[in-house]
């Protein structure tokens, strides 16, 4: 039931976002609100079983601010660096690739998803496979450093920096 | 201002299509398709701005959401998974 309500709220907010300025100024006309509510209920009834809001911790505004901070402070600069890096490799053609295994020790699905997507978009790495039980990630690394190859699973700090910590803080 | 950008993107699309044609293995072509998707979405947004038509962006959103489904289907076929 709780999940259902949260899902409904998400759907309703999304619908409102899509139909801004339907009424006077910024607001919504009342027909739009009613129709949106009905649709939100229907959609929530469909997806309630799979929508990943099993716990209420994600509703904490602190986590949202953390997410924004992470997104703008850590993620975007890393992404810019990544792109310059890839551009450099495109032009020169120097690569030294390999697939390495890291274990970030994340528990929830959302956390591992966030981490994997961050890894994919940031310097020289691309998540290829995830272990269903242990949540270990297999990462394709475009420029394998010698010092990271000492132990298995490899050390996170060479591959993806501080991302696992941030993911844990935000999603767990 | 926007039209040259759109044409430039179209040229990029043409270059990517070459990879789609040459790609030795199916995953290579799939990468080409994925890249193509993103570029087409961006050019849709750009063209929407160029026509100065606010409602056109809807098409880009639809494409951004749905091209994902195609990619997943083909990827799942390539990895020989059960549907």
């Amino acid at each position, binding site marked *: 039931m709780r999940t259902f309500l949260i899902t409904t709220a998400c759907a309703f907010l999304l619908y409102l976002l899509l139909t801004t300025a339907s009424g006077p100024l910024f607001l919504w006309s009342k027909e739009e609100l009613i129709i949106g509510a009905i649709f939100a209920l229907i959609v929530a009834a469909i997806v309630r079983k799979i929508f990943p809001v099993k716990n209420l911790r994600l509703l904490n505004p602190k986590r949202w601010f953390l997410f924004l901070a992470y997104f703008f402070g850590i993620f975007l600069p890393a992404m810019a660096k990544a792109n310059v890096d890839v551009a450099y490799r495109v032009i020169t053609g120097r690569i030294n690739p390999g697939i390495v295994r890291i274990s970030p020790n994340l528990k929830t699905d959302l956390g591992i998803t966030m981490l994997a997507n961050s890894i994919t978009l940031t310097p020289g790495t691309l998540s290829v496979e995830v272990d269903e039980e242990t949540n270990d990630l297999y990462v394709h690394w475009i420029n394998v450093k010698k010092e990271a190859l000492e132990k298995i699973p490899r050390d996170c700090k060479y591959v993806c920096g501080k991302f696992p910590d941030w993911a844990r803080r935000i999603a767990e | 201002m926007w039209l040259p950008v759109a044409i430039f993107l179209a040229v990029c699309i043409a270059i990517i299509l070459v990879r789609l044609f040459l790609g030795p293995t199916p995953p290579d072509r799939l990468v080409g398709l994925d890249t193509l998707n993103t570029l087409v979405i*961006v050019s849709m947004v750009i063209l929407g701005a160029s026509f100065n038509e606010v409602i056109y962006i809807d098409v880009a959103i639809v494409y951004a959401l749905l091209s994902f489904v195609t990619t997943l289907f083909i990827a799942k076929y390539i990895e020989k998974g059960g549907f």
Partner: protein
Amino acid sequence: MILNIIIYIFIAIGCFFNMMAALGLHRFPDVYTRLHAGTKCTTFGSIFLILAVVIQSISAWVAEGLSSPQSILTLHALIALVAILLTNPTSAHAIGRAAHRSGIKPARAVVDDLEKEKP
């Protein structure tokens, strides 16, 4: 005027990275490295191009008054951006996984943990 310059800079960055993506697909030797080019560069380029559109429409919005239809353009362009940001890395992951499972070895690889552990 300054706004225009910012928009032009954004467009230049976006176009450059999209071009890099297109070239990278040809320069790299195998699927995984091509995925690097195809995912990262297009996502980054798209962010900048869409941001350019957003900045322009916001300026038009401010110029035309609050009830201008440009607000819808801004919001929808941002939604499209979010959709790209969400889907692109996931589909890259799916493609990489599919490629590995269908038996494609990474070219010139120095190390392959996945191959060792899951034959």
